[in-house]
């Protein structure tokens, strides 16, 4: 049975791919760029080797301060968003965890309803991308910093909540059982037996999400928020590719630095 369904997939996936390509009218010849496109693409790639600190629209302007400010803004947006997401995500994770409700025998009959509704809320938050949340919040509140942070936080809190609650439900419960047998209350068993077992994984995952939040914060610049994305978008629009690459390299450098830092922290968190 399993073997048959697997061979079905092997056939079905490429067939689905070909059908959807046909529906979209994709053909290899249309993917091939025209003369003008080639030139622009060449300029873009070529500019990667000559990023500039001088504004391409006004040679009197040095863009280094602007780059640093935008990088700093990106970090601040991401830190604000991930902090809010961790708080919201942790609370939702507990409510969505099966083990949490199992600690309270009175909830037995309504338990699936309780964590089920929490999971439905989490799924809703996650299923809408931060760009769409940003569009909606922009329409409501205008170009407001809080709106941008919340736009990132909603789907991020959802994702953190989903993963955190799975970590809580799958963490080893040996210490929790020992504490229960030493007379600890349900709340104590959860807080001192289960949460510490899940915490290193939760911390490591939160750091990974922080890296994602940096990219999301940069992207929200496309809407005019003063992060790196704003300047990347503006420079590319004017075909100032050398300038654009300066911002892109700043973003890459930022991600690499955070990656190295969080990698070191993660190794400390998950000691074997």
């Amino acid at each position, binding site marked *: 049975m399993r073997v048959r369904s697997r061979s079905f997939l092997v056939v079905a996936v490429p067939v689905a791919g070909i059908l959807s390509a046909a529906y979209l009218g994709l053909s290899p010849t249309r993917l091939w760029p025209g003369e003008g496109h080639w030139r622009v693409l060449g300029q873009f790639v070529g500019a990667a080797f000559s990023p500039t600190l001088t504004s391409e629209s006004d040679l009197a302007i040095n863009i280094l301060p602007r780059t640093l400010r935008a990088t700093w803004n990106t970090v601040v947006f991401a830190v604000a968003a991930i902090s809010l997401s961790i708080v919201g995500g942790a609370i939702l994770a507990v409510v969505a965890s099966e083990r949490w409700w199992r600690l309270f025998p009175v909830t037995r009959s309504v338990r699936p309803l309780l964590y089920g509704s929490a999971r439905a809320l989490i799924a809703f938050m996650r299923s809408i991308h931060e760009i769409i949340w940003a569009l909606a919040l922009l329409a409501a509140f205008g170009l407001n910093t809080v709106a941008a942070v919340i736009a990132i936080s909603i789907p991020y809190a959802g994702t953190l909540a989903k993963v955190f609650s799975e970590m809580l439900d799958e963490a080893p419960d*040996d*210490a929790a*059982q*020992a*504490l*229960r*047998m*030493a*007379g*600890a*209350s349900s*709340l*104590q068993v959860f*807080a*001192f*037996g289960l949460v*510490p*077992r899940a*915490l*290193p994984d939760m911390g490591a995952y939160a750091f990974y999400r922080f890296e994602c939040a940096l990219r999301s914060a940069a992207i929200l610049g496309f809407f005019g928020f003063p992060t790196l994305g704003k300047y990347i978008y503006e420079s590319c629009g004017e075909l100032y590719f050398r300038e654009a690459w300066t911002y892109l390299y700043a973003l890459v450098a930022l991600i690499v630095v955070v990656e190295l830092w969080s990698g070191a922290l993660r190794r400390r968190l998950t*000691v*074997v």
Partner: protein
Amino acid sequence: MKKTSTPRFTLDQVSVRFRENQAVERADLEIAPGELVGIVGPSGAGKTTLLRLLIGAVRPDSGTLRVDGIAMRDRSARDLRALRSRIGFIHQDHRLVPNQRVITNVVAGRLGRLGFLRSLIEIGWPRRSEVVQVHRILDRVGIPEKIFERVDSLSGGQMQRVAVARALYQEPESLLADEPVSSVDPARARDTVEQLTRIAREEDLTLCVTLHNLELAREFFPRLIGMSRGRIVFDCRTADLFDSDFQKLFALDSGEMLQNA
């Protein structure tokens, strides 16, 4: 004195079944306060289930289990918590939080006596007096220098001592230890059993220990309970037991070899 008149643990025709398996069958038992009892028998004999019965982690399917004269089934959840906080249980696999420090694990032993907020403070920011007390207990089990180390940096034998320290920090009336020497080398095994029985004598604790190792059981416990296939085969003073009693105990278990004996 009430202490000597009421047995600590009383089993009256207690049976426990796991699915179709009979884990404990019509067990009758009385353990007085301050007694040192070794529970021996082949693996799967029901020794661990017997121990878990005593702390209310397993419920009898039939029969009556009394602790301090009160039937387990008559105890409320709150009452059971209070009872458990007076019984230290040392698990075969230690059951510590590996990514926390030794002191945090030991302090967690007293959760049963604390409200939630108090326990948050004591675990997060232990007071000087608590640190001193934990240090004294760790000194007793021989690893005072490990107090601020993470548990996952310790050896198996050291983790075992942390588990003992956590149980002692409860200031218990009884200690139950499930195969405490299964994860330590033979030289350490003797130390561990010697230590447990010595502490129990000094503190006047009731001590029940399940053991695979018959030699250690005979050396350190004045009373031995032999179990095989869920039944109590013998329960008497160690001095009254012969080698043949032990051989019979293991022979009952469809020819399982005498281990560690």
